[in-house]
């Protein structure tokens, strides 16, 4: 273990860096051994069965109606379990999965270009920079083909060729065409498929739907997850829902950065509350930053918009060589004064380097003062993505045919015409690979609490490949969870639980107290102002590049901000109506705790890995340097209590099939 003397301003003696403790190692006990291509079948066979007549006596709560939750709710409803499904939006169809644009991977090998389950597995392990589990990733690749069959049967209108068969494209720099898509709306079409399957079960009476409900606590009785406490966002009523098992499919936590490509309401509350009740949080610092987003326009910015990275196939990225040119009209800057920095630094990959490299280099040139566009704070945060050459090479019609909808979107948001003026782009937080720790069964460290989709940590290691989050969400929801959860449910129905049980009463009382607390502080600052300030700290110190000094500083800043939040936040209105400030207050309070854990995780991981660049761990020419000897493990954090320190449990990663290599794009 690496220890140094540096600590935050108020270190606790006996802790590493003064901030965390180290506990016992942990292990995934559920993945079978043996040949990798037989493990999932073995597990399915070994998992106990539940007699159809018993299923309706077993109840499951599913929080989240995105691909991961919606697919699971529909499937478990079809199987005959009693399902309760929750989402905070007004309809399950609006979960954030809807926003995914690019596509979904599957090893169908329809193009006969050498793809296979093994190759998808291999690419995903490598893309994750050797920080994911081989067994999980193999299973993901294996069930990927069933997903496409299922979606087509539901009527998902994937793009097709003239012969009537499904079309594929290559995505995110991989060499085979395995990405299925529905124009720029893949997420929407997949989600509508899952949503319709879910509504069918609502009509059939197997699923009860609770939209505009927010889960605020998990109920744990005798060490088992037995329910949730939720707030009806319309009436404000605090409700208790009890069941035999609970599934969290609540999505990612990128909004801890305030600005991200996530939806406004995306939050960490469901998983964070479970963490505080005993579920380990794995690799919280693993964040993916996407290079091609529309830059911040001003202080008013509320979210960031992603533009498909396919734009990098034909667009060229540059900034002025001289800072003095940054305010000029880019069309007036002559060729010799432009720095096509990706082409310069990475001559063989050029503009197509992986997401993390493209993002970090954009930050570097802007930090040097060569960014373009409006100043936000002290710097201009933007680089040019220039289609001038493509327009000359391909004609405006051909460019419009290929990228028209993206270029229109850019114009709508910025008011600039990309056919005439180079676009401006800047990286933005896009996806969180970290999440609640789960075993091969997708069960967290609380028995009976399962976690699926972006909310868990399981399949993407330190970096996610394009088009594989949709694949994971649907794999978990349709094909994995329904098998693994039955092994747990087969032990039920569990003893009937009364709402008067002390653990239930305690969970509910804690939610009531928290709501009352927010409304009683009556300070000077809005919830948003705290959220923005937290976002700035996270972006500055726990974003694309991290250093020990910066992270320690961030921990101090976050602690100060959290302290102020609980003294000085101002939440108006009452608890018994729709109250959006109150909703936000709960989410930001949890982000303020998560942010600190992310910094602690980043601090302990003294290596550059995946999308995460650590200043102290780089090669001589400034590239990321991994340390497999020290860090080839999952960092699973145990909640250390309100005034205690988090405890690190390491799960060693063993590679039996794929050989670990350093990435090189030079």
């Amino acid at each position: 273990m690496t220890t140094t003397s540096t600590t935050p301003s108020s270190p606790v003696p006996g802790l590493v860096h003064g901030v965390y403790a180290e506990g016992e190692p942990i292990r995934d006990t559920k993945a079978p051994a043996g040949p990798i291509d037989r493990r999932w079948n073995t597990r399915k066979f070994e998992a106990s069965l539940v007699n159809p007549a018993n299923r309706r006596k077993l109840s499951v709560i599913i929080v989240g109606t995105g691909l991961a939750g919606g697919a699971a709710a529909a499937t478990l409803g079809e199987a005959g379990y009693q399902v309760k499904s929750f989402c905070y939006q007004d309809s399950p169809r609006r979960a954030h999965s809807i926003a995914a644009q690019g596509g979904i991977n599957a090893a169908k090998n329809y193009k006969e270009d050498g793809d296979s389950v093994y190759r998808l597995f291999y690419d995903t392990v490598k893309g994750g920079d050797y920080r994911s589990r081989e067994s999980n990733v193999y299973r993901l690749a294996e069930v990927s083909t069933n997903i496409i069959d299922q979606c087509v049967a539901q009527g998902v209108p994937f793009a097709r060729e003239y012969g009537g068969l499904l079309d594929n494209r290559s995505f995110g720099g991989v060499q085979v065409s395995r990405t299925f898509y529905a124009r720029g709306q893949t997420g929407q079409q997949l989600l509508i498929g899952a949503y319709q399957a879910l509504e069918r079960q609502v009509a059939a009476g197997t699923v009860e739907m609770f939209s505009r409900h927010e889960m605020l606590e998990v109920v744990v009785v005798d060490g088992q997850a037995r329910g949730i406490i939720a707030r009806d966002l319309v009436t404000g009523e605090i409700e208790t829902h009890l069941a035999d098992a609970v599934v969290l499919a609540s999505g990612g936590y990128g909004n801890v950065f305030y600005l991200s490509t996530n939806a406004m309401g995306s939050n960490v509350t469901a998983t964070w509350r479970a963490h505080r009740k005993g579920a380990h949080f794995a690799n919280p610092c693993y964040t993916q930053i996407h290079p091609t987003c529309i830059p911040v326009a001003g202080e008013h910015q509320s979210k960031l918009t992603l533009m498909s990275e396919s734009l990098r196939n034909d667009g060229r990225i540059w900034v002025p060589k001289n800072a003095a040119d940054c305010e000029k009209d880019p069309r007036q800057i002559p060729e010799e004064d432009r720095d096509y920095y990706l082409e310069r630094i990475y001559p063989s990959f050029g503009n197509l380097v992986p997401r993390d490299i493209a993002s970090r280099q954009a930050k570097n040139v802007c930090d040097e003062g060569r960014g373009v566009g409006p100043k936000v704070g002290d710097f201009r945060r933007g680089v040019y993505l220039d289609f001038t050459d493509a327009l000359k090479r391909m004609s405006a019609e051909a460019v419009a045919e290929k990228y028209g909808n993206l270029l229109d979107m850019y114009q709508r948001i910025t008011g600039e015409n990309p056919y005439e003026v180079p676009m401006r782009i800047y990286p933005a937080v896009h996806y969180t690979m970290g999440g609640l720790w789960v075993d091969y069964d997708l069960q967290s460290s609380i028995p009976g609490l399962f976690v699926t989709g972006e909310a868990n940590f399981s399949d993407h290691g330190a970096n996610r490949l394009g088009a594989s989050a949709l694949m994971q969400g649907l794999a978990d929801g349709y094909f994995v969870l329904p098998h693994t959860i039955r092994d747990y449910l087969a032990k039920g129905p569990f003893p009937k639980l009364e709402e008067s049980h002390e653990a239930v009463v305690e969970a509910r009382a804690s939610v009531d107290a928290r709501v009352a607390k927010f409304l009683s502080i009556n300070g000077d600052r809005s919830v948003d102002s705290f959220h923005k300030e937290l976002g700035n700290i996270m972006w500055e110190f726990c974003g694309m590049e991290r250093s020990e000094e910066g992270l320690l500083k961030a921990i101090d800043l976050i602690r100060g901000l959290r302290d102020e939040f609980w003294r000085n936040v101002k939440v108006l209105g009452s608890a018994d109506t729709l109250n959006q400030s109150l909703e936000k207050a709960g989410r930001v309070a949890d982000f303020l705790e998560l942010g600190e854990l992310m910094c602690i995780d980043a601090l302990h991981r003294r290596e550059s890995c995946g999308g995460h660049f650590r200043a102290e761990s780089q090669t001589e020419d400034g590239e990321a340097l991994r340390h497999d000897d020290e860090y080839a493990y999952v960092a699973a954090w145990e909640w250390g209590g309100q005034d205690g320190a988090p405890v690190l449990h390491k799960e060693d990663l063993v590679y039996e099939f794929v050989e670990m290599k350093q990435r090189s794009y030079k």
Partner: protein
Amino acid sequence: MNLTLKIWRQSGPKAKGEMVTYPVTDISEDMSFLEMLDVLNEQLNARGEEPIAFDSDCREGICGMCGLMISGKAHGPEVTTTCQLHMRSFSDGDEITIEPWRADAFPVIKDLVVDRGSFDRIIQAGGFISANTGSAPEAHSVPVPKPKADRAFMAAACIGCGACVAACPNASGMLFMGAKITHLGELPQGQPERDARVVNMVTQHDHEGFGGCTNIGECSSACPKEIPLDVINQLNKDLRGALMRGE
């Protein structure tokens, strides 16, 4: 730019609402319409007045959560969603009225927020293809002619925002429903349930209190996804066929 906003305030589902005037200053043309409301809400909060409730989530024009009547037009003056509308579509000195969707089937919850649960219930009535998980045949076993696939996709682009209902003088949900009927009806997988689907969805639609269609076409002009009117013809054709076949 400086603007005068007249905004519908209603404290709860049963409360009586009213229009309230709010001047706003220093609005940048790069702001989205909802960011402009965020700015106003921050000011209200600072003054101790409760912020205005309005819905949004993705702010990318895809989830269908946002939706305001802006000076009498659903989603405002451009063909886009409220969240994708930017302030450069307005001029200094403009007076803008902002109201919730108005329809019996979309009751107001608070301020600008309405309940669109009726749309979900229409889908429950038949807006799906019954295909249990794991029962699907190999995806390539049923080719779909490209024109049909493209038309299904065009109709499937509906985001369920409800602008069509808000724009329609009869508050009809026919464009929304026609889009689903067309999406599923164009595909081979959608055929077995085609008759039952249209009958059950239409029955639910009427039961929810949506009005009938009198071919005015406001719905399609307001639709941010440009769903064409002919999906309603498709719906009517399917309905007649189904009734004739005795569904």
